[in-house]
């Protein structure tokens, strides 16, 4: 065994001998680095998650409100729309020569906590996520009949729905909406493959379906004495008068700004068009302060963890002067003492940071489902990315640097004490 291996063995055994302190130190490093890595992971993953959800769309158009609000409700199912757009405006804009495709969106209903989105079959043809992926069906196909519905992967899984099942849509977005459109149930005709986007948590129906369940309603309530059966409704003209928003894909990206200006100045009604990437940037700008604060807090926690380690090692130094003198007596060089103390710090830090990585990976595995349900944030369970490795490396380097101090003191003591430590 070389002397370097001996030093490592001594560091390991000596730490094992002071197990309780060592474990506490490791835990404090693990928890603090897990916090730092977790904050960083949520930050980068929400960004790339949001970005991938809108990657195929050039413009989103809705009633004039806030850019971020429009983005959030139209594609992320967060928040709620303020106003509608008329079908006529939609037709006119979608008919522009620069437009390649359009997807209408009608929101406002829900099914057992999952949002219902009215659209048409262009959605399945043109919508793209994660750069260029198309929506694909795990089972069944797109809706055809008025009372057909296509479920996102999570909806089907969490509610245990199969093809052919009948579901009732409730008015409003809450999980416990009391007003049910229970006289007009929908049939599940398709279940989408998992996308890792809010689509997984969406119930899709045709625009006519949305129109049909509201046919005997006005002003948001059921019109008294006017109830229509599902059959009677089908007789009506189910062409919607208004939709909530629509997505546009253009033939050429170059046309984006021109069309956006045109829509924003649309004379017939107050409309707004946003470029998803630009608005996302605004969103990040908005929460940047919070992110920086979170990162700063977790950095402070890491520093506190390192101070804990430092104090643990420094405290042990006094009682270990004797050990150092023994080592010197059997031929250890001063640098062995330096290396011994530094490798104790290094061992604590390496184990601590590794545990922290395991912790954050395990925790993201455990909380992925909850984050998705509760906040619609899709955290992929994966190994730490390059930035996380960089952070882990920085924590390690800082720990090494910090443990140089007690190491240096032990080294000085060992030289000054010689072989005679007076205790």
């Amino acid at each position, binding site marked *: *065994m070389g*002397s370097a291996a*001996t030093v490592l063995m*001594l560091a390991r*055994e*000596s730490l*094992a*001998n002071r197990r309780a302190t060592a474990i506490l130190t490791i835990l404090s490093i693990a928890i603090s680095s897990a916090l730092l890595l977790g904050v960083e992971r949520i930050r980068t993953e929400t960004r790339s998650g949001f970005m991938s959800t809108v990657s195929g769309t050039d413009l989103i158009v809705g009633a004039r409100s806030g850019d971020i609000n429009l983005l959030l409700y139209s594609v992320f199912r967060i928040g709620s729309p303020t106003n509608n757009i008329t079908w006529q405006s939609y037709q006119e804009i979608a008919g522009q020569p620069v437009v390649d495709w359009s997807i209408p969106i009608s929101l406002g209903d829900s099914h057992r906590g999952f949002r219902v989105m009215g659209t048409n079959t262009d959605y399945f043809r043109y919508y793209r996520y994660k750069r260029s992926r198309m929506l694909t069906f795990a089972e069944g196909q797109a809706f055809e009949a008025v009372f057909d519905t296509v479920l996102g992967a999570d909806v089907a899984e969490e509610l245990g729905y199969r093809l052919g099942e009948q579901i009732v849509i409730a008015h409003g977005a809450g999980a416990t909406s009391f007003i049910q459109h229970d006289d007009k149930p929908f049939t599940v005709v398709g279940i989408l493959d998992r996308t890792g986007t809010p689509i997984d948590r969406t119930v899709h129906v045709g625009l006519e379906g949305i129109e049909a369940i509201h046919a005997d309603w006005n002003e948001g309530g059921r019109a008294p004495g006017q109830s229509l059966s599902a059959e009677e409704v089908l007789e009506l003209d189910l062409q919607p008068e208004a939709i909530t928003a629509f997505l546009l894909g253009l033939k050429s990206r170059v046309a984006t700004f021109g069309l956006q200006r045109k829509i924003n100045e649309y004379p017939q009604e107050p409309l707004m068009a946003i470029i998803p990437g630009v608005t996302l940037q605004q969103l990040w700008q908005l929460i940047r302060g919070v992110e920086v604060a979170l990162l700063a807090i977790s950095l402070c926690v890491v520093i506190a963890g390192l101070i804990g380690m430092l104090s643990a090692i420094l405290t042990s130094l006094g009682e270990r002067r*004797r*050990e150092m003198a*023994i*080592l*010197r*007596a*059997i*031929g*250890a*060089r*001063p640098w*062995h003492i330096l290396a011994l103390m530094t490798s104790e710090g290094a061992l604590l830090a390496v184990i601590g940071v590794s545990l922290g990585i395991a912790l954050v990976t395990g925790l993201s595995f455990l909380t992925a489902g909850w984050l998705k349900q509760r906040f619609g944030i899709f955290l992929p369970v994966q190994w730490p990315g390059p930035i996380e490795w960089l952070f882990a490396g920085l924590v390690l380097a800082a720990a090494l640097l910090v443990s140089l101090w007690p190491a240096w003191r032990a080294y000085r003591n060992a030289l000054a004490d*010689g*072989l*005679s430590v007076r*205790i």
Partner: protein
Amino acid sequence: MVSAERATVEASNLVFAWPGQETVLNIDELAVAAGERVFLSGPSGSGKSTLLGLIGGVLTPRSGTLEVLGQPLHELRASDRDRLRADEIGFIFQQFNLLPFLDVVTNVSLACRFSDRRRDRALAQSSSEEAEATRLLHHLGIDSELLMRPVTQLSIGQQQRVAAARALIGSPGLLIADEPTSALDSGLRAQFIELLVAECESAGTALLFVSHDLSLRTQFDRSIRLTDINRTKGTDG
């Protein structure tokens, strides 16, 4: 192996002072022959441990010459002195000789880990460092069942014998024992010294043994009083 004809320790006009203190040692002449067993006595505070630190190469003399096993310690760099100590000098202190976090055998074999020479000489005796450690421990009266115990559970007498085994492993040229028996009951002292002397003899190791219990000196080839060879007076003794 150290050549038998070469002196183990040869010091002349050796002067040492701790930083900021008066001179503790000023020794005209001191010599220990190869394989010789020397008893060194002196009142507490007279500089016995300091002298051992100089011979062990941990301290550097102010002036004078100090040769240990043919090496001029007063001229060597610190790292070369460390190497000489690792290779050729075994230490036993008064107490707390062992690392509490290592088992008995590892405490002994550890002395081979910082010196290739000592390891090679240990391996010339036994098949492994651990086997050599166990062999020495048996010679010094440590039973096999004790080997499994944490060192903190050994009696002081047992701990001192483990320390002796560590000082002896790899047959160093010189064994320095700094009051190794002063924490032992008087009945155990003679027995410990007998074992130590026997092992030094069979390994050809010179022994420099410090104690203020003059009754022990009969077991040695020669007895030196530090106050006789030191021209300064001890500070508190």
